[in-house]
């Protein structure tokens, strides 16, 4: 059982959370102008590390915020956890 340190709620059991996948991947910054190869990499290819892994969790039965967690995929030790703050877009849109 994972005990995830939510920045708002404190350490809570994994059953309160929803896993949101690999947090190290992002859509290519060029958006729709990005090449097919860039989109293929972002959509399908993963580092899949044996060790520290950055991943997203949603605290469904708690504060209902997304957090970014760095967790070891062999020992399951939690190395870091922080609130996920969406980065502001350069063009000023939300």
């Amino acid at each position: 059982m994972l005990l995830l340190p939510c920045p708002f709620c404190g350490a809570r059991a994994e059953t309160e959370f929803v896993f949101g996948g690999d947090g190290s991947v992002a859509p290519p910054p060029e958006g729709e102008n990005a090449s097919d190869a860039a989109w293929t990499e972002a959509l399908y290819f993963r580092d899949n590390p044996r060790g520290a892994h950055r991943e997203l969790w949603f605290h469904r039965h708690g504060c209902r915020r997304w957090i970014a967690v760095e967790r070891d995929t062999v020992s399951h030790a939690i190395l870091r956890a922080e609130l996920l703050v969406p980065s502001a877009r350069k063009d000023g849109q939300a």
Partner: protein
Amino acid sequence: MRYSLLSLVRNALSGHRHWRPAWRDAAPKPAYDVVIVGGGGHGLATAYYLARLHGIGRVAVLEKGWIGGGNTGRNTTIIRSNYFLPANAHFYEHALKLWEGLSRELNYNIMFSQRGVVNLFHSPAEREGWTRRYNMMRLNGTDAEVLTRERLAAMLPELSLDPGARYPVLGGVIQPRGGVARHDAVAWGYARAADRLGVDIIQNCEVTGFEIGNGRIAGVETTRGAIRAGRVGLCVAGHSGTLARLAGLRLPIETHLLQAVVTEPVKPFLSRVVSSGALRVYVSQTAKGEVLIGGPLDGYNSYSQRGAWPTVERILAGAAELYPRIRRLRLMRQWAGVMDMSMDGSPIISATPVGGLFLNGGWCYGGFKATPAAGWCMAHLLATGATHDLGRAFALDRFRTGHILTERGEGPQPHLH
């Protein structure tokens, strides 16, 4: 020694002192035509078909531990070919046909029991989905039947059909030719048969690097020295990403946990494999009498080979709802394997960007039933350099070209497959 009734009687009468090891404990030679990394069912089947069908005998299978000690020895031994998409349907049906003749082919009893695999449905929407899929199977030439509640009651007398259940059973589907086999015996049978054709099976030999020059593979580095080979096949599902990284490749694969548990043994009461999508659990009874219970992934990336309790609790609740009589049984063992979860839920049998390096992986939680056909296609690929017709859809390239093969359509989210 060929196994037969005569050999059994002769050894029984001589006190079982003269059985010989089923395969040689080979030491690595400096060079081979083909090196296969991974001594599970897939690697050993690949070696066997390379020698048997393609006449390539200078083959080594390298295993970091002991053969069949990874996912081959951890799966829940179910064999079925109930797939919807034509590429998957034909591939798994070919596997099932090979299973049907495998004990005889290998001269090794793999205890293949075609007891039928039942999937239950609990809602009209599920019924439509399963009926569509099983009708598609019939169009593809695979055996498939839809079952009413009455037929289910006759077939599975202990199954709870209580209309007051949280998810009442409305009916089910069955693939009668599906079943189970003894997983260790599959590894041992292929190992013995491959060894007799000259394949070297080298245990306690971990691959630590690849020798690559001008974009082509030239050999592997191992804990027992360097081995030269112009063609190398990776059959290490669960650890494909780790091995591929040594060759400088990134894959469309994540590694996840899948658990199973067995109870203490009891008298036979469950003659088929029974699975429920709504309860996310499947149940069968082993030849030893244990009730074998499996379910979905733990749901987050892990290489730990240890599962967590929330999943155990969930699958046990589901199993007890299907079979209330097992509530009082004690659990004997609980374990987890690490799965190569591909981004579209379908396997990869493919050439890679490195010349001469081929990948067999991404099996998600369905690798065991594929063993003979995966070995068959992988051997063809290693021997000829060309993809076998049955494995054409499983190329690594499909993620770039957009020809992804997704049975359920969750999108590239392996933890949801």
